[in-house]
Every structure is written in structure tokens, then in C-alpha cells.
């Protein structure tokens, strides 16, 4: 049994008088899909932000593959192989879809800027090699037609898909998705689920997602963690969590089985 990919240990986050997270612990197993659910304001996005390195916990630790990584900056976390999407899509509006996804390849690119200024030799070959990788992702997510469209002009559903593509371009070990299906219709949600499952199956990427749609959560996740008012109130297999008393009281309501 290898060390879990990510461990959150007793993390608390306080903003002045406001406590966003209180002694939350969870583990992310390598190659598994974890769903984080809970009412609005429970601290789900805050948790993702802590893992991403935007906020540093007021207390507690974060371990990545057994090593303490609590006080890293976002670019450092990216270098560990963590990629994410945002609740309010954070695409680069001024750039085309292709360029947006290419930015995801950034950490895989190294180069001398002199060679790049000449667009010659190794710089050129590298650019083309990355382009090939990105094109495979574009095929995978079926967004070929909008490659050159400026990201700001796309409808919401497509923007979310492009954001997923950008995250995938980094070939991450851990993918953090913040409400990837928000605002989508049934068909789009099915597509998104398919993509997420495919990514997990084909590349073994560990996925942690925040999601409100319970059918999606039950369908695709291996484990579920429930947050409420900044605390974890349940953690286990989907079927168990769904019947958990505390969860029903706080979030799900009475279930009609």
C-alpha cells in the first residue's frame, strides 16, 4: 500500500474572525476519484485553494506523497503535478483556445529565450512537439472546431471544457476540479463525466472534484467527503455517505429510496 498521493491533516483556515475550515483531514488515494460535497459556503473551494497554495493554512499540514508541502506557492504546487479548474472559469480571455491550452504545457517547456526569439532549431521543434500533444487533447475533448476562437467568445459549457483541456495539458498527477459541471445541461454533463472517467482510466490521474449534482457524484466517485460549516462531517464510500444521518440532516435532506 503506497503512501497516499495527498494528505490534508487537521487543516484550519481563518480569515480574521471568520473560520473557513476547521481541522479538516482527508486523504487522496493515487488513481482514485474523490468527490467533495456540501452546502454552499461549507469551505469546499477554500479547501481546494489551500491545496493549490493560494491560502496557507492557519493550522495543520499538507503532505504530498508523504512530504510536507504546506507552505508552497501556487507555481510550486503546479510543479508537483497538480492542476485545477475554477468555479468561475479562469481562462485567458484574450487568447485563442489553442493558446490557452498551450499555456498548460508551460511547465513542460524549457527554453532559452534567445533561441525562441529566432524561432529556430530546438525552440521551434519544442513548440511543435507541444502543439502535437495539445492537439491530441483537443481531439480527446472534441473541441477541434473552436481551436482558434478567442476564449472570451465561447459559451460557458465550452469554456469549461477548454479549462479542463488546459488542466490536462499539464499531464497532472492530481486534477482538482471545482464544480466542473456547473451550468451544464444533461448532455453536456454526460460528456463531462465521460471525459473525467476516461482521464482517470487512461492516464491514471487522481481526481478530486467539488460537485453538487448527487447523481454524478454517486456515478463516478470512489470516495466522498462531506463538508459543512468548515468541518468534515462524513468520509467514505458513496453508498454509505448517502445514507449517513449527519449528511442527510445537513445537506441531502430526506432520501426517498
Amino acid at each position: 500500500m503506497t503512501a497516499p498521493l495527498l494528505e490534508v491533516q487537521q487543516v484550519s483556515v481563518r480569515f480574521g474572525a471568520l473560520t473557513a475550515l476547521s481541522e479538516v483531514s482527508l486523504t487522496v488515494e493515487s488513481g482514485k476519484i474523490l468527490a467533495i460535497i456540501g452546502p454552499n459556503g461549507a469551505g469546499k473551494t477554500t479547501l481546494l485553494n489551500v491545496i493549490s497554495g493560494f491560502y496557507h493554512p492557519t493550522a495543520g499540514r499538507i503532505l504530498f506523497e508523504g512530504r510536507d508541502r504546506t507552505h508552497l506557492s501556487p507555481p510550486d504546487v503546479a510543479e508537483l503535478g497538480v492542476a485545477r479548474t475554477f468555479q468561475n472559469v479562469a481562462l485567458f480571455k484574450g487568447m485563442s483556445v489553442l493558446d490557452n491550452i498551450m499555456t498548460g504545457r508551460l511547465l513542460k517547456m524549457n527554453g532559452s529565450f534567445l533561441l525562441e526569439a529566432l524561432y529556430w532549431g530546438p525552440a521551434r521543434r519544442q513548440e511543435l512537439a507541444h502543439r502535437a500533444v495539445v492537439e491530441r487533447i483537443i481531439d480527446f475533448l472534441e473541441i477541434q472546431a473552436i481551436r482558434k476562437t478567442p476564449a472570451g467568445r465561447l459559451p460557458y459549457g465550452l469554456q469549461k471544457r477548454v479549462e479542463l483541456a488546459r488542466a490536462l495539458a499539464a499531464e497532472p498527477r492530481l486534477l482538482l476540479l471545482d464544480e466542473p459541471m456547473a451550468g451544464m445541461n444533461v448532455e453536456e454533463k454526460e460528456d463531462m463525466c465521460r471525459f473525467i472517467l476516461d482521464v482517470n482510466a487512461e492516464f491514471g490521474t487522481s481526481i478530486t472534484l467539488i460537485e453538487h449534482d448527487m447523481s454524478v457524484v454517486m456515478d463516478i466517485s470512489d470516495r466522498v467527503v462531506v463538508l459543512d460549516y468548515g468541518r468534515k462531517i462524513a468520509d467514505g464510500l458513496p453508498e454509505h455517505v448517502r445514507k449517513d444521518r449527519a449528511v442527510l440532516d445537513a445537506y441531502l435532506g430526506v432520501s426517498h429510496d
Partner: protein
Amino acid sequence: MTEALYALLVGPFKDMGSSPAFFAEVLIGGIFAGLMYSLVALGFVLIFKASGVFNFAQGVMVLFAALTLVGLMERGMPVALALAITAGVMILLALLIERIVLRPLVNQAQIILFMATIGLNFFLEGFGEMLWGSNVKRLDVGIPDTSFKVAGVLINRLELTAAITAAVLVSILAIFFQRTRIGRALRAVADDHEAALSIGIPLKTIWVVVWSVAGLVAIVAGIMWGAKSGVQFSLSLVALKALPVLILGGFTSVPGAVVGGLIIGMGEKLGEVYWGPLVGGAIENWFAYVLALVFLLFRPQGLFGERIIERV
């Protein structure tokens, strides 16, 4: 080496102590200069607080107001009438600016609006010069530019009037923003144009009102500055000086504009008189900006401004 350090860190203070009356005069000169900056900065704060726009053209508006006033008075109009007409002109200007510049750019990024006000700045500069000519004009508002002594320290009547005017204006404006319904509405508008629109706040009216008030403040500032140094084009450069004042005081704070102005004014004067000779003078050209830069590094919201928190 030690001589240099001594000259830098000890000498100036000794100079200050050796003639306290002079020191007091320099300080007071700095306070008054600072208050003049504050008057200009006030216009900025008003507009920024109420419309979220950083009005680079504020200095030019001060100039324009002064030019109009002087121009009318030179043609024989009595002061009161000239003032009334100038006020009318500034209100008309506010109407035009709202219609032509602000309305089309509603809800664009702040930086776009800022650049539009840079364009406005240039336009008004050329326009003002075209209308009223470019030579320096004297502005006489009936307050003599003479000094009297208090406890051995020279105080200038004109500067004293400016200080009192500034104090009165600041108090009125501060009360207005904090206590009245309109003030609250203005703050809502500054926060989010679209949201304000959607709850029925009449954006256009508010903008015209605010820019008009800023225009009237500009008239007061223009009178004070113009009476002191004559109405000339260097007045529009004052706008640039007001930027550091705002950074120190906070962009959204009326009392901050005063405190910031005082600090800049005093700092400049003291720096120029006591440290200036060490480096050949003219420190005033950059002192304010460097001070602002230092502030930006350590306290970007200024002394009284609101902290900007970015949501992820």
C-alpha cells in the same frame, strides 16, 4: 564616508533646530502647499469613490475652471457673475463628459477608463489653451497675498484662507458620503456599475452630479492655486502630483486626501530646503513619487484606503 552620512542624517536636523522660526515657516509652507494638493486630490477622490473612475484629467479641470473664471473676469465681468457662469460651465462639462466618454465605456475595465481620462486630459488642455490663450494670467479674488506674524512666524493670508476653505470642503464632503442616502448610492455605484444599475440607481444622473461636484471643487482649487501662482499651464501638472497624494491617503478616503496632501507638501518642502542642497536641488520633481512608490511597496491601500482583497 562618515562626512557624507553626517551630512545626510544629522546635518539637516541640526539646521532645523538652529533656527526654529525658519523651520516653522518651512513647515507651514509645506502644510499650505499640501493643502493645495489636497484640494485637487479631493476632486479625484470624489470621482473615484462615486464612479470608480480614476480621473487623470482632474488637474486639467482645475486649470480649465481657473482659465474660464479669469477669462470672464478679464472681459469685465463682476466676480460673482463670473463665478456663477464658471460653475455652469463646469456642470456642462460634466454633462458632456458623462455623455461622450463615460456612458459608452460603462463597465469596461478600470484601466480603459483611466486611459480615456488621459485622452480627456490632453483634449481639455488643447481646448483650454485654444479658448483662452496660453499666457499666464493673474487671478485676483480680493484676498491679499500678504503675510502677518504670529509668534515670530510668518503666515500668509492667502494660504490661510486656502487652508480654511479646504478644511470646510473636506468636512462637508465627508459628512455627505457617510451620512446621506445619496452618498451611499454613490458608494454602491463605485463598487459595481452593473449591479447599481440593476437595483435602479440612476447611473447617468449620479455621474453627472459627481463630476459636477468635482468640477466645483476644481473651481475652488483653481482659484486658490491661481491666486497664489497665477493661472498657467503648469497647473495641469499638479494632477500628476496629486497621484502620490492619493496613494498615501488612499483612493477612496476624503480625510486621506488631506492627510496625504499634508505629508507630501511638508515632505517636499522640508526635503527641498534641508536635503536639497546636498544633491543640487529640485528634489521636488521626484520626491512625492518616490515616497508614493515606497508606500506602494508596504501599504498599497494608503493610510486610510480600503484593502483590496482578490477573490480566487
